[in-house]
């Protein structure tokens, strides 16, 4: 049992319970998202005491030194005094410069940042509509000199942020950008290496960024991009990817739908995207693999590709985690 001081409160946190859940239990408002240590929405700062190393995983060294930590991953082992961090130092201002429907439920959102923003295509950021509502999205475009950032936002049933983007956000609306995060991006260490990109749904967004990066950096090995969707409408970049593949000999675009109710078109395969990919490329030994989207698919494929011969260091995965409700407190049930 550790005591955590926050905002004039002293909260007792039982062993194994996170600072985030303990504070939410007490009715405090703490921004949060994935609850899995990935989105960094629940960033807090410890002003007294040492937080467990696990709660600082993935943070920049400068942030770790300032005592920043992820409240969802912080099961405190000693007493702490914590606060919400000064967001001015973590986020930069941006405004919406475009919205374009890519499919019924996917919107391309274009933002322009107020100052230069350094990132690698395929990384992700948290977009903040206001002080409390933040959600993570992958960067789908290459860094531009004018600070343009592009995202593919899928409408989540009842989703506060995606609902706002789809239904009511307007060009000129302001939001804040925090990040970038993640290590799912192109590296030019071996320009001849074959690349395997597999994504479902808007898992295509980071892959589209990675693909453009690889092409821009003159990658010479074959690039196979597999996009899986439930049905044809979910293949929301089908035409532009088909066109891009026609322009680049080394680029192969494979469109896959899970439910082929009617005969899919000649250029669309029906079935599981992972199985289709393995069938097409044979052994993934020696390939660099990028997997993005549905967590079950991403984690399952990571294992399959590894067992089929891909090196662990060559598998980059970005599982899209939904922002989840609080797990029940077993002690208070």
């Amino acid at each position, binding site marked *: 049992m550790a005591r955590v001081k926050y905002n004039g409160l002293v909260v007792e946190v039982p062993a194994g319970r996170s600072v985030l859940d303990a504070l939410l239990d007490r009715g405090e408002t703490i921004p949060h998202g994935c609850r899995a240590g990935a989105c960094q929405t629940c960033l807090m700062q410890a002003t007294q005491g040492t937080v467990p190393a696990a709660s600082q995983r993935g943070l920049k060294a400068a942030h770790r030194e300032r005592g920043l930590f992820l409240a969802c991953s912080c099961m405190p082992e000693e007493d702490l005094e914590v606060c919400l961090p000064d967001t001015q130092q973590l986020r930069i201002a941006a405004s919406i410069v475009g919205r374009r429907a890519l499919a019924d439920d996917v919107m391309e959102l274009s933002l322009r940042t107020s100052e230069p923003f350094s990132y690698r295509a395929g990384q992700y950021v948290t977009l903040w509509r206001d002080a409390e509502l933040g959600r993570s999205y992958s960067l789908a475009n290459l860094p531009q000199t004018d600070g343009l950032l592009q995202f593919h936002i899928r409408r989540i049933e009842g989703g506060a942020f995606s609902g706002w983007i789809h239904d009511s956000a307007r060009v000129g609306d302001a939001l804040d950008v925090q990040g970038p995060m993640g290590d799912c991006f192109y590296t030019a260490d071996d320009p001849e290496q074959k690349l395997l990109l597999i994504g479902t749904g808007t898992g295509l967004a980071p892959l589209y960024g990675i693909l453009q990066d690889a092409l821009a950096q003159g990658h010479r090995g074959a690039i196979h991009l597999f996009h899986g969707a439930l049905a044809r409408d979910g293949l929301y970049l089908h035409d532009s990817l088909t066109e891009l593949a026609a322009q680049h000999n080394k680029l192969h675009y494979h469109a896959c739908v899970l439910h082929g109710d009617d005969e899919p078109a000649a250029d669309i395969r029906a079935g599981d995207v992972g199985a289709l990919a393995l069938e097409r490329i044979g052994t993934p030994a020696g390939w660099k693999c990028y997997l993005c989207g549905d967590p079950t698919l991403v*984690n399952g494929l*990571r*294992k399959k590709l*590894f*067992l089929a011969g891909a*090196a*662990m260091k060559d598998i980059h995965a970005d599982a899209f985690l939904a922002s989840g409700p609080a797990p029940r407190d077993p002690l208070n049930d």
Partner: protein
Amino acid sequence: MASLYERLGGDAAVDAAVDIFYRKVLSDDRVNGFFDDVDMEAQAAKQKSFLTMVFGGPNNYTGLDMREGHKHLVERGLNDSHVDTIIELLGATLKELGVADSEIEEVAAIANSVRDDVLNR
């Protein structure tokens, strides 16, 4: 005489072994049930520390870590037969990499030395 770790090839040898070893562990139905729910990247890092230790390399393992780290698995039925399997797969990995039998025995002896801590007894 060079240490076992140096004779095996140091950090580079561990890197060469870790994927082969972990792939064997995940493919072996006698033990892979213990690895179903783990984060593969975190687990690969742990496999690397484990291999560094059994290669006689620099490590920070303590008996207590071994006990704490495996307690939940012992509760799920981890026993001597599973430790035997891991040591067998370790040997097969080293064999594949061309390591001599005498050195494989040295590695197996180090792995065996933590058996009681792993099994929490």
